[in-house]
């Protein structure tokens, strides 16, 4: 490595599992932080047992759901019920800059690893936790999965077609974006504060609050205008046409081929009309200005769909972007993996895993000119680096290691 990475020298003791937590620490790892992931063989990270699996064969070392969130990390396994394991954790905390967990509220306290406990061991620690409901309030003990975060924050209610049931985005979106990204930002800000003052701190991210910070409008519209917004399909608040239209080959047999369009000015409307070959219908008074197009958008969308459906998607996209129309194809995962632009940017990285062989990982979407993200280690096997970490960080000799292993400390 010719260039020192921005977070090299920073050590993270990573108690996170499942969704939002491991994505947070992966962000730190790709810019040079040393992340030590603590697992337990008796209580595996749930994602190790969820598909997809390499070649479809079930196995705790074969899940791509797990692997994509855990590259560049060292994995150690400890049986937390063994008092010696607890001693080892305390020694590791002394040598760490950041502790991160995403358990339910107060779980770490029950193990004697709450912020108060950890600060006694390492006074300048940055301690980040991400409990579902935060650590106080009437619902603090409530439990839920990512899909229920979507439910509570309103994204299910707001995403869908008005005449149908709520739907949502089809993923546990807050786990992947709002919660990990904002936790990482807070940790980085806390690192700066520590560099300036020597002081560590406690960070709490409540998993139903942080996602509302990127979903503010309906809350504000209710509080100030008294309006309870409903889902509105693919309509835009401000512009028409805006939506998703079928292209050639789209049918109900499982062939999903669509193009999206977003016209945001009169110039763009003129460009779209030109690209469509100036059809007569587009000259009608009811489509002249944005306000008229908004008012008559159902009819407008039908007419546009009647045009788009005659063309191959790739060909249509080229024609539209050349005419300066904001357009894009609705790409599935296969299209995305083969996308020329993403591949030009070398977005997908294939890392060699001792059980899975080469499989795909997302690299950072942030391309830094001087210190680009480094993605070079596949996700760890359970306990893959236990011995190495014990030797390198705790100076544990071979005999002691084997002795503790026999006692079941490293299960």
């Amino acid at each position: 490595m010719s260039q020192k990475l921005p977070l090299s020298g920073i050590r993270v003791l990573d108690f996170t599992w499942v969704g939002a937590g491991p994505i947070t620490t992966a962000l730190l790892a790709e810019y040079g932080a040393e992340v030590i992931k603590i697992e337990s063989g008796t209580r595996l990270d749930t994602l190790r047992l969820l598909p997809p699996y390499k070649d479809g064969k079930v196995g705790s070392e074969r899940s791509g759901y797990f692997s994509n969130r855990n590259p560049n990390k060292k994995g150690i396994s400890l049986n937390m019920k063994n008092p010696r394991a607890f001693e080892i954790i305390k020694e590791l905390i002394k040598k760490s800059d950041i502790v991160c967990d995403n358990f339910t509220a107060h779980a770490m306290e029950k193990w004697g690893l709450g912020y108060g406990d950890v600060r006694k061991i390492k006074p300048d620690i940055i301690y980040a936790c991400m409990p579902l409901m935060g650590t106080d309030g009437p619902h603090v003990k409530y439990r839920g999965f990512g899909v229920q975060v979507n439910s509570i924050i309103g994204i299910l209610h707001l995403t869908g077609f008005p005449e149908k049931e709520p739907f949502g985005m089809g993923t546990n979106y807050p786990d992947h974006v709002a919660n990990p990204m904002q936790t990482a930002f807070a940790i980085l800000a806390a690192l700066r504060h520590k560099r300036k003052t020597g002081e560590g701190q406690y960070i709490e991210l409540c998993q139903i609050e942080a996602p509302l910070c990127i979903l503010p409008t309906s809350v504000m519209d209710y509080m100030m205008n008294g309006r309870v917004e409903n889902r509105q399909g693919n309509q835009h608040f401000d512009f028409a046409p805006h939506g998703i239209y079928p292209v050639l080959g789209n049918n109900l047999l499982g062939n999903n081929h669509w193009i999206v369009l977003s016209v945001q000015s009169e110039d763009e409307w003129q460009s779209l009309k030109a690209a469509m070959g100036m059809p007569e219908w587009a000259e009608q008074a009811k489509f002249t200005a944005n306000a008229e197009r908004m008012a008559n958008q159902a009819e407008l969308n039908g007419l546009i769909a009647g045009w788009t459906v005659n063309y191959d998607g790739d060909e249509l996209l080229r024609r539209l972007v050349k005419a300066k129309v904001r357009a894009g194809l609705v790409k599935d995962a296969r299209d995305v993996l083969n996308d020329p632009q993403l591949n030009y940017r070398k977005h997908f990285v294939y890392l060699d895993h001792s059980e899975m062989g080469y499989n795909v990982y997302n690299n950072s979407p942030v391309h830094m000119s001087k210190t680009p993200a480094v993605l070079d280690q596949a996700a760890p096997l359970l306990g893959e680096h236990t011995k190495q970490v014990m030797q390198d960080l705790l100076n544990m000799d071979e005999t002691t290691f084997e002795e503790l292993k026999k006692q079941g400390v490293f299960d």
Partner: protein
Amino acid sequence: MSESQGPLSGIRVVEFAGEIGYCGKLFANLGAEVIQIEPIEGNPIRRAAPFYKDIPDKEGSLQFIYQNTNKKGIVLDIENEQGREIFLNLVKTADLLLESFPPGYLNKLNLGYDQLSEINPRLVYTSVTGYGQNGPYRDYPWSDITALAMGGLLYLAAEGVDLPVRAPDNQAYMMGALHAAAGSMTALLEAEQSGRGQYLDISLQECVACALENAIQFYDLEGIVRRAIGSQEAGFGFYPCQDGYVYLVAGMGNNVNLWNALADWLIKHKVEGADILARDEWKTPQYRKTAEAKQRFYDIFVPFTMKHNKTYLFENGQEQRVTIAPVNNAKDICEDSHVKYRKFIVDYFSESLGGQVFMPGAPFRLSQTPWKLGTEPPEFGQHTAEILQEIGYDTKQIQEFKQGGVCIVAKASS
């Protein structure tokens, strides 16, 4: 305005990023000084609905208000030679530049990274664009929905052959803002140590491609192209209730605890037929996935849920360890006892709007260096005169710039 003591105090951010304003807000609310530059026609998000009290006004866009608290604002024509010089003088004082112009635009004005890093070597220069600065799609025009589509997330927002649907609040722009924030912060930490900044090229399409859950791996490892998972088992998904819907996660693979808690809860409420749910066949996903099981469960569960509202089902169910959640709308969120207890929604009195403004508050709590909402968003051109004076222009020059259309100075501050 009081001097900030946040963890990012001392950092100056110059932001010329229009609708991608949440990145700068994250910096501003932790104490960085963020100066937003708007073009003469204004940040486009000032024209975005909905508006405060539904009155269209350039100070009233709820999205503009939300994204720009605790920022300063100037209005500048950088295509004008004098405006360009003002921009250069401002960037000399900055630690971070955030911009979202089409690739090549700032280079054409000789305001690219090479030029700016020469006059300010410590500058971190972050560009957020639809597809990145190079490559085959570089010049494609973009919007939120094109990025969601081309990055693969939109495809997941439907089942089977259904038409996908877009989420509100420009989520692709939000993803770009969040990656720009974490990336820029990382680069700033590096620059503060090495003394040299760098260039960050961020593509919205690529940010979206990072949020596909396990869809990429499903194709890579198993050759499966997935969409939304949907409700696959009895006891998993939406169920109607008196005032809307609840979302239940009780049937999930081999997890028996979730199912048992549900059965106990319904038996306790003497729900007709609930005793059947305690039988062994219900404890396997194989049975719960059958159409028969889904229908039987619905027929037992929904007569119960239709007698209650979502808050009751949420609170009563959770107290009995049932993983049930309300499908909230904005009113439900704002009236939720937990959200209220934690004072998540913050407010201030706006002199310019003449009323109380409410918005989501802190995304995180930092014990030593708390998040602060700070000042109201800048009125159009509010800080133009103040900032220009600070970087060395006198009142007479500012007056000339104003008359020449180089900048806009708000009435209150001129």
